[in-house]
């Protein structure tokens, strides 16, 4: 467990410009928000320019970064002292290392593509400038999250992306469903954020520092004294990661977050923000490496989530919600990979990158379909669209094939090793985790094939329907500003996996940050058998989807007389029900009883006190009779008392 104790060196060269990565989009946000309506025509270009500039800067930093193995590939750029309070010394600094640079390129690269796409997608929206301002705010926060060199800086970015996510989910705030979804996302994220905050408090209490260097160099000593503390820190970090990444038990917000505009779903709720949990665990590899229990919990959560996501995705009719549950389950794969331990963190990051490409591409494709279909999201009203939208169909198909793990596309290179690594855990654990991952691959193939059939093939059901506002559907291909990013992402979905795994390129590059990569060698079954098994499962999923969905006409109305399996899947495997019964309902009851207690007890006491005082003074008032002689008598009495008191004091 010594491989990650490498300390950071001061940033030199291009790395010193890291702060501009965060500042550029932030300046963009400021310009667009302060500029107001005057920038309505040009604001989006400012936003695009800032993100492209950040991407170019990130690319330059990446190209000039010293290769791993030279001992200088982890650099810290301390900017200023943020919180100098006695023992609490928090430096505001950025860390430039292979892991953060990988994320910088993903965020700014996919971010720039989605900015381009949004110009077309949000063309008719009167608040397009505001939308781009929020997108830039998101990019800035996300970059701060991955670049921060202490947990407090990371936390600032963590909250920033939460805010941006809230603003963008609720962007169409005139829709009650969007406003509710935004609140739900914010509140469920808050549960996770509390976990992360507690983890930071615990680190400070145990080690007196919150910087990555300080924590990672001392965590070994803490583990020797009290292994429980390290496990506690790891589990609290995991709670934070679960909240941000939509993992069980905090997964229910992510599908609802699809109320936001589709580019937001692609950028924030598929490619970047929701993978922050994976980043956190990979970044904290020195902590997780020391606690087997913590890692076991991570893998269990990953395995459970990937199944829950797949099952729920099978029954949804809303194209974006299917993709959202697909995201939940794919992040489950990433958690599974980063939970499996020392050698295979790189696999999680690899899947994160390829997923960033194909899932962003799929979401943009879904957005393009919605754009041509009067913003309708119900797949039961689609059908036969491949003829009307050839580019969308082609790019979507590559994203689909990459997602289900079709051989030699990106998803195959990243998902297959994760399944192998799960089997390599050995024993019963290996069978359970590997089996879950394998089953998930089959289910993924099923629900994605179902989505493809319902959207692009079969009868063109939309021809006989009208959208909710009474218009006819005229499906059409989207403008170039939308299709070009889709094509680029489709190319990424095809080649990224091959490119990144060639000669273990990514794994070797990441080794200074997350430790040396070691190829998993399953002992219980051979790696070839796993690959073949995965392909068989995928083929089965596709065939079953054809049997159930593809060969029959799709009813426009959702069938209500269905088996309990489908009902369970439609209820999202109980996600919302559990939240309701365990937290929401007791919470409401508690609040109501507190309101009653407040009215009956606290209010009564306070008003009673007031009434009593009023009654008392009404009595006392009566002594003011208006007769001079009664006043004279009280004066005399008072004087006598004073005299007597004096005499008592004098002679006592």
């Amino acid at each position, binding site marked *: 467990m010594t491989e990650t104790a490498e300390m950071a060196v001061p940033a030199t060269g291009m790395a010193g410009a890291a702060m501009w990565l965060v500042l550029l989009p932030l300046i963009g946000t400021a310009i667009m928000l302060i500029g107001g309506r005057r920038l309505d025509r040009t604001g989006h270009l400012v936003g695009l320019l800032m993100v492209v500039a950040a991407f170019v800067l990130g690319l330059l930093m990446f190209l000039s970064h010293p290769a791993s193995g030279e001992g200088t590939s982890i650099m810290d750029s301390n900017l200023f002292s943020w919180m100098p309070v006695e023992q609490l010394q928090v430096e505001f600094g950025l860390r430039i290392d292979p892991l953060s640079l990988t994320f910088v390129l993903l965020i700014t690269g996919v971010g720039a593509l989605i900015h381009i796409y949004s110009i077309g997608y949000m063309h008719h929206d009167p608040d397009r400038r505001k939308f781009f301002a929020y997108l830039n705010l998101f990019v800035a926060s996300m970059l701060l999250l991955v670049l921060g060199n202490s947990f407090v800086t990371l936390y600032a970015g963590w909250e920033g992306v939460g805010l941006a996510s809230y603003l963008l989910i609720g962007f169409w705030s005139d829709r009650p469903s969007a406003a509710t979804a935004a609140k739900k996302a914010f509140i469920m994220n808050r549960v996770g954020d509390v976990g992360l905050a507690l983890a930071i408090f615990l680190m400070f209490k145990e080690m007196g520092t919150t910087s990555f260097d300080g924590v990672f160099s001392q965590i070994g000593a803490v583990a020797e004294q009290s292994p429980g503390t390290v496990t506690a820190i790891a589990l609290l970090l995991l709670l934070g990661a679960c909240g941000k990444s939509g993992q069980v038990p905090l997964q229910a917000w992510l599908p609802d977050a699809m109320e936001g505009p589709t580019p937001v779903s692609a950028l924030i709720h598929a490619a970047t923000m929701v993978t922050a949990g994976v980043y956190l665990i990979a970044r904290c590899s020195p902590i997780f490496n020391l606690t087997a229990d913590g890692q076991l919990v991570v893998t269990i959560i990953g395995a459970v989530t990937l199944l829950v996501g797949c099952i729920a995705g099978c029954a949804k009719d809303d194209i974006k919600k299917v993709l959202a549950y697909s995201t939940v389950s794919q992040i489950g794969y990433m958690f599974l990979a980063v939970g499996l331990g020392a050698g295979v963190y790189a696999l999680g990051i690899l899947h994160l990158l390829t997923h960033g490409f194909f899932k962003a591409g799929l979401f943009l494709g879904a957005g393009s379909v919605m754009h041509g279909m009067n913003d309708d999201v119900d797949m039961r009203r689609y059908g036969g669209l491949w003829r009307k939208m050839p580019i969308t169909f082609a790019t979507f198909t590559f994203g689909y094939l990459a997602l289900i793990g079709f051989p030699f596309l990106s998803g195959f290179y990243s998902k297959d090793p994760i399944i192998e690594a799960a089997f390599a855990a050995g024993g019963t654990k290996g069978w359970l985790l590997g089996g879950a991952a394998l089953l998930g691959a089959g289910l993924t193939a099923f629900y994605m094939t179902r989505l493809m059939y319902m959207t692009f093939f079969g009868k063109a059901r939309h021809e006989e329907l009208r959208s909710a506002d009474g218009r006819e559907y005229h499906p059409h291909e989207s403008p170039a500003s939308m299709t070009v990013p889709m094509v680029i992402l489709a190319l990424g979905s095809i080649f990224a996996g091959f490119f990144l795994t060639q000669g273990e390129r990514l794994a070797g590059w990441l080794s200074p940050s997350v430790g040396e990569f070691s190829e998993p060698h399953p002992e219980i079954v051979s790696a070839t058998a796993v690959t073949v098994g995965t392909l068989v499962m995928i083929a089965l999923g596709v065939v079953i989807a054809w049997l159930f969905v593809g060969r029959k006409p799709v009813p426009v109305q959702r069938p209500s007389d269905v088996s309990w399996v489908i009902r369970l899947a439609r209820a999202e495997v109980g996600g919302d029900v559990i939240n309701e019964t365990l937290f929401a309902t007791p919470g409401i009851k508690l609040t109501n009883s507190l309101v009653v207690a407040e009215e009956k007890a606290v209010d009564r006491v306070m008003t009673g006190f007031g009434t009593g005082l009023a009654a008392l003074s009404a009595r006392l*008032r*009566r002594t*003011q*009779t*208006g*007769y*001079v*002689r009664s006043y*004279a*008598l009280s004066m*005399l009495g008072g004087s006598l008392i004073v005299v007597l008191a004096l005499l008592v004091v004098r002679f006592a």
Partner: protein
Amino acid sequence: MNPDYYLILSALLFGIGAVGVLVRRNAIVVFMCVELMLNAVNLSFVTFSRINGNLDGVVMAFFVMVVAAAEVVVGLAIIMSIFRSRRSASIDDANLLKY
């Protein structure tokens, strides 16, 4: 002559004045009773001055007389205006300033 007698006289006068203030209704009589109390105090001042052999008490008595004279001027004027406005000098009639 024993100075105690003066003090007893002073106490008697003060008591008579106090009782007069409390029981009488005519404003003029009440006023005179107040004067009686003041002069009872003057008497004890002068007596103590005599007993102690210095003039502080006498000086204080002069002050009381001056203040009392000023007070009589104001007080009688008030009683006059009350009498003029309500045709009565009874202090029980002037009881508007109450709860």
